[in-house]
């Protein structure tokens, strides 16, 4: 089934009776060439690129819940490539380029909207840092424009420019940044993988990883044992639990990140805006809800819900930045489990077990990485070689101290990102 304007028109005129399910609901086979544990955005895109770019179609994605039910369906949907450090810089640049061709590639409307991401600065030092960051982004081949106060005011006149504590000095505009419809990204990749023969097996929890003489042989699941030549672990906040099945301890602590959405409003916020003096970022969904978030709650948690202090902080930061949103009613909030690494950067690597691969540590920034992560992880799983854009996402960088990617320069240890 292909989507096209003609098809939508025809279905509209004939009662929308011709649409079919986007993917099958297959029984697990006894053996696959490759198994992906985790049917989130990263796992689905990995399966998609394994099939599309490496011809590996005897692949299963095992999902404990349902497709799109995890963090890929619960995030603030921001897509950007504004990183500075080698390793992150080329990776997110690669991922953004994949985003730009994603809808045609998947034949699926993921509502990718390059509405521009505006990061605000509130001091001379921060402005200098943004000038440097902008130059790093341009040097990488991406876009950035440093705006002065009046430049920001022209774009977003509704901010509180005269705030005495946090006056707005300017901003860094990343015009190719924006948002996408998060569920559609999961569905588009799922459909694309399924069409190429990948089995998407939902309600199938992995309970063990079979390893013989240092070589992976398959997995145990709630739907029986499944053999596989290669196994990729892509389970975000649950990485430590699944890695433990293979006898590994990871440099990861799981934390909760909250996000919030208001009732639907008329179009009011055209860009993605991030406040520079409190962790707060906001955009408006196509349905009209203001979608915004802040920082981690800053203690390890698997609760999928946060506590009041951070919720209050986020609201306060929002009110400080744009008092006009004060009367909007918050419709709901939610908390996702983030796999935090000591340096705040991810891991895409092999493990000491032959055939077992690891993709984790996306911290609170995994959504924008979905295309790039799957693309690079598929390359690693299929060829055994690191993919150039993700070659620095090594698991052993913490042990060796080589090529740590501490983007925030706070130190490479837990609890600082």
């Amino acid at each position: 089934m292909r989507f096209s304007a003609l098809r939508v028109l025809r279905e509209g005129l004939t009662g929308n009776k011709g649409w079919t399910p986007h993917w099958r609901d297959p029984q697990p086979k006894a053996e696959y060439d490759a198994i992906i544990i985790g049917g989130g955005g990263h796992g689905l895109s990995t399966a998609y690129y394994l099939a599309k770019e490496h011809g590996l179609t005897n692949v299963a994605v095992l999902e404990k819940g349902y497709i799109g039910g995890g963090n890929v369906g619960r995030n603030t949907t921001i897509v950007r490539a504004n990183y500075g450090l080698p390793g992150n810089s080329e990776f997110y640049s690669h991922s953004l380029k994949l985003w730009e061709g994603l809808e045609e590639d998947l034949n699926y409307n993921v509502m990718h909207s390059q509405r521009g991401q505006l990061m605000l600065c509130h001091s001379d030092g921060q402005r200098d840092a943004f000038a440097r960051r902008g130059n790093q982004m341009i040097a990488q081949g991406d876009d950035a424009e440093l705006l002065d106060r009046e430049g920001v005011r022209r774009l977003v006149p509704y901010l509180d420019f005269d705030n005495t504590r946090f006056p707005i000095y300017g901003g860094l505009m990343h015009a190719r940044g924006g948002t996408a419809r998060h569920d559609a990204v999961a569905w588009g990749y799922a459909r694309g993988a399924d069409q190429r023969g990948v089995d998407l097996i939902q309600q199938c929890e992995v309970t063990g990883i079979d390893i013989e003489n240092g070589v992976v042989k398959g997995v145990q699941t709630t739907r029986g044992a499944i053999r596989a030549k290669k196994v990729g672990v892509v389970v975000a906040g649950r990485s430590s639990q699944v890695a433990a099945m293979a006898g590994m301890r990871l440099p990861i602590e799981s934390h909760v990140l909250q996000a919030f959405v208001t009732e639907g409003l008329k179009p009011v916020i055209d860009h993605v805006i991030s406040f520079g003096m409190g962790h707060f970022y906001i955009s408006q969904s196509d349905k009209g809800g203001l979608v915004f978030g802040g920082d981690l709650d800053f203690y390890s948690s698997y609760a999928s819900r946060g506590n009041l202090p951070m919720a209050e902080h986020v609201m306060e930061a929002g009110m400080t930045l744009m008092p006009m949103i004060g009367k909007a009613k918050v419709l709901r909030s939610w908390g996702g489990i983030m796999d935090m690494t000591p340096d705040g950067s991810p891991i895409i690597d092999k493990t000491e077990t032959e055939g077992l691969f690891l993709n984790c540590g996306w911290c609170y920034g995994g959504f924008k990485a979905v295309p790039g992560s799957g693309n690079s992880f598929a390359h690693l799983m299929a060829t055994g070689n690191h993919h150039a854009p993700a070659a620095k996402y090594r698991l052993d960088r913490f042990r060796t101290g080589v090529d740590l990617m501490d983007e925030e320069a706070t130190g490479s240890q837990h609890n600082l990102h």
Partner: protein
Amino acid sequence: MRIDCPLCGARDRREFYYQGAAVALNRPAPDAGVEAWDDYVHLRDNPAGETRDLWHHEAGCGAWLVVTRDTVSHAVSRVELATDVKGAMA
């Protein structure tokens, strides 16, 4: 979430700063080697369930606490002074 500080009584979570897993109490010897130090600084059990971590009563008495709590329910089951825990380990 409230934490029952042994010195100050039950206080709001906002008074406390989370310092990370209580593994920090088991600092290896300086010459213990790369593996031991990697394990100490970076690798974590990261349990979904009962965990022990260090909190600093930053806006209170300033004590370091070992808090036993559940990472799934956020229930706090035990709070001890880090000095007592460290003393018992010696």
